[in-house]
């Protein structure tokens, strides 16, 4: 019994080593995931952000077809990086609506002129109210809402070029 115990520290060291090594290998996931995925989209209604484009309400969703809901801001640099991917999604027939966080109409209009405008509607969420009700923690984030108005998926951070095909597939797999 006593003899066997002498190996205990080495064994504990081995376990600790494996745990720490595994932690170092795995890239850290620091994203805050919304717990509303698989739950209905919360009700909201937002005023239009730019002239000539409607505001956004939860009733825009759940009309039988899946849609993307993009959370963005004109002051957000990753949103500029994401813009070409959103344009590509729009070109492939994906309907995209947006809410703009902490923003002003002229700034958003300038952003759309510079980076393209993939949105059918943009709601003005100046105090992040709707963003918080979605469980979203930053910009950009994109939610996939199915035809019955349920949140199916949350894409955290800017959508990269290699994610576009996957998102089109996700849309097709969603009703």
């Amino acid at each position, binding site marked *: 019994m006593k003899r066997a115990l002498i190996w205990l520290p080495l064994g504990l060291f081995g376990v600790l080593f494996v745990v720490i090594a595994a932690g170092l290998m795995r890239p850290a996931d*620091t994203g*805050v*995931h*919304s*717990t*509303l995925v698989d739950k209905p989209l919360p009700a909201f209604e937002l005023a239009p952000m730019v002239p000539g484009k409607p505001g956004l309400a939860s009733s825009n969703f759940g009309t039988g077809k899946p849609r993307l809901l993009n959370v963005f801001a004109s002051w957000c640099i990753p949103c500029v990086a994401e813009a070409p991917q959103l344009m590509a999604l729009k070109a492939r027939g994906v309907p995209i609506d947006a809410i703009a966080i*902490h923003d002003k109409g002229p700034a958003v209009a300038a952003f759309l002129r510079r980076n393209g405008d993939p949105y059918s509607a943009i709601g003005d969420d100046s*105090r*992040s*109210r709707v*963003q*918080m*009700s*979605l*469980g979203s*923690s*930053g910009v950009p984030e994109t939610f996939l809402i199915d035809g019955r108005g349920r949140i199916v998926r949350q894409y955290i951070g800017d959508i990269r070029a290699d994610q576009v095909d996957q998102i089109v597939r996700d849309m097709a797999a969603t009703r």
Partner: protein
Amino acid sequence: MSLSLALLLAAGTAAPDYGNTQLPDPRAEAQARALMGELRCVVCQGQSIADSDADMAADMRALVRQRIARGESPEAIRHWLIERYGDYVSYDPPLSGATALLWTTPILLLALGAWIARSSFRKRR
């Protein structure tokens, strides 16, 4: 109180910026502040919303103050946020399967200490 707040809210832009303005009622403000110390800023993840300078933290403080002023209990507000961001958003984690170890470890360590102390006292005798 709630009527004046409703009027303020109806005025829209006339509503004070509750992210950085205290509530007029000191008791409500104390309640709001206690809760803000226990909520995690979801942008700057190591800070409470009371400590953080991020815009999002100010928005979360505004949400807490407005709901307290409306008469909501701090626990209801915490629950509303946990529903959206998970237990992660609260610095006061509820007892569950995942947090059971966190809550029981001190008791287990105390028991272990008592056991070691007992056996070593016995040896000395």
